[in-house]
């Protein structure tokens, strides 16, 4: 294993369980992965697979009650699980920042955007009013907002969705965090704007030497912009590995199903997209076996009775959880 200091984020055996009226709900179970500096990792999975809960747990953002978190999240050497609010507050903004899903609701509608950016600068970094304003305008320029001096005084309601998401990113970048959590940063945006925002994130990552956790349900988003991918299903990792390996040599049928259900440019027009039959399982009624078994065409009796653990694949760093993995010879061009 690599030295602790080399990895920015080490998640180990992380579980988040909500206490609900129907019993314990394991939204995230036994997740382990790590993230190097200046690396982008993608977390993919369909709705309800626990992506958002995972990213919030890594941030240390849980409701105050009815939740138990076990395991460990080491963020640049700081343990986030079980840390006090005060401790986490010191890390938020400077160590880790978050870009939210919907730019329409992640800006305060009654505060000028400039003020929303320079508040953090003044409170957290102790900048003077003039310095903070100058820096805020710099940040607006950095995220590609035209005429930032005028925009500094705008209210969120005066900006378009894409512009707002740029502002959200500028706010997240204000205190130069080492890790940026982007929870579906493009879901609320037009396709053309999506590409712009993702390219912007990529560019900023390089320029500011950040690491990025990109949470998404869109495999097209992670394909070219991440070095590794975590595939989640029902709160667990079902496949993890280098992006190239996951795309070309995936072993888990769920990963294949996800890949097949995203449209490709090479498809003939009017090709019907392949869908995954059934729905994600009810996390309150998980069975003994593999959570994906009920929807999986390769499932055997064993799949229904025993949960597969993550096992190493041929490529280093690539592992999957499946009793009947897809053959490796398939699509081996990448290796």
């Amino acid at each position, binding site marked *: 294993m690599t030295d602790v200091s080399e990895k920015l984020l080490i998640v180990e055996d992380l579980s988040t369980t909500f206490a609900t009226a129907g019993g314990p709900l394991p939204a995230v179970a036994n997740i382990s992965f790590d993230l190097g500096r200046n690396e982008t990792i993608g977390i993919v999975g369909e709705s309800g697979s626990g992506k958002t809960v995972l990213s919030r747990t890594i*941030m240390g*953002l849980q409701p*105050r*009650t009815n939740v138990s978190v076990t395991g460990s999240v080491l963020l640049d050497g700081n343990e986030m699980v079980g840390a006090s609010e005060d401790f986490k*507050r*010191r890390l*938020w*903004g*400077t160590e*880790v*920042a*978050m870009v*939210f*899903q*919907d730019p329409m*609701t*992640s*800006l*305060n*509608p*009654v*505060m000028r955007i400039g003020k929303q950016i320079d*508040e*953090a600068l003044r*409170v*957290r970094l102790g900048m003077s009013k003039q310095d903070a304003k100058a820096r805020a305008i710099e940040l607006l320029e950095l995220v590609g907002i*035209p*005429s930032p001096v*005028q*925009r500094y005084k705008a*209210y969120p*309601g*005066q*900006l378009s969705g894409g*512009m707002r998401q740029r502002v*959200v990113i500028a*706010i*997240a970048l*204000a*205190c130069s965090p080492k890790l940026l959590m982007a929870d579906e940063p493009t879901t609320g945006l037009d396709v053309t704007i999506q590409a712009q925002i993702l390219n912007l994130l990529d560019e900023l990552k390089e320029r500011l030497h950040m690491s990025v956790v990109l949470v998404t349900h869109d495999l097209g988003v992670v394909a070219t912009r991440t070095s590794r991918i975590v595939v989640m299903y029902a709160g667990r990792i079902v496949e993890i590995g280098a992006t190239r390996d996951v795309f070309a040599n995936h072993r888990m049928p769920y990963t294949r199903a996800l890949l097949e259900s995203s449209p490709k440019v090479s498809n003939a027009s009017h090709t019907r997209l392949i869908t995954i039959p059934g729905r994600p399982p009810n996390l309150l009624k998980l069975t003994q076996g593999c959570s994906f078994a009920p929807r999986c065409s390769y499932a055997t009796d064993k799949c229904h009775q025993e949960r597969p653990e993550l096992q190493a694949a041929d490529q280093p760093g690539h592992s999957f959880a499946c009793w009947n993995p897809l053959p490796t010879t398939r699509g081996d061009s990448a290796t």
Partner: protein
Amino acid sequence: MLELEEMALVERPEKKKPLGPLFWLCVGWIALNIFGAIFANVLPLQNPLYQNYSAINVGPSLHHIFGTDDIGRDIFSRIVYGSRVSIAVGFGSMVIGFGIGAPLGMLAAYRRGRFDTILTTFMYILLAFPAIIATIAVLSFWTPRSVFKIILVIGLASVPLVYRVIRTATLSVATKDYVIAAKVQGAKDRRILMKELLPNIAPIGISFLLIGIATVIALEGTLAFLGLSVTTPTPSWGNMINESRTVLQQNPWLAIFPSLALCLFLLSLNFIGDRLRSHFDVTEVKL
């Protein structure tokens, strides 16, 4: 392409509609009322308690512009003096109600957990008990009734109502992403309460405050009508309306003028509140 976009973005001045003459008329009217209430004993008014038995139940005239009541007191002067009680009760009790109810409501909605559960249950129990009966009960025994006591009782009775409205408003804001966003930027609780939550619930709070003032002034009238407001002969708009009831046939002016004063005051207040809200609303996109 970019030029076009820039033009569209840059040249969108924050041009605000002027508040309009009606707004200023209402402000003027409220100011006049408050001015009258404060300087009633300096202004050249007739003594509101002086009973002129040679002019009973006379209609509006040059000497008594609003006429006199059934024991010969000048109605105009009594309305001006009466505004003191009405306005003091209206604003005073809302200061108490919001002073206690609003911070508790915001805190409960932001903190959640046991604090919220206990406080909210307690407030809902209070709400289940009709406030008017509690007010009547307390004021019946707590004599002699003064403006201060009435303000205190109505103010305290309004706390659960204010609490409920502010708590609900805060709840809907506190779960918004921008509050979490502020939190993960390292903002402290007090900052989130003051900078993120307060400005966003302010429009609801102000609307409710103005409706509250109006309701309380009317409630003071109700109490006066029951003889539970300030002890006579001190006039208030409410007890003037109450006294007019016995002589409604002979002298309708006695009911009309204080009702008109009450009505115009409340109308102006509500209109001002409404205009201010839409004037300072930055969440609506203005194109």
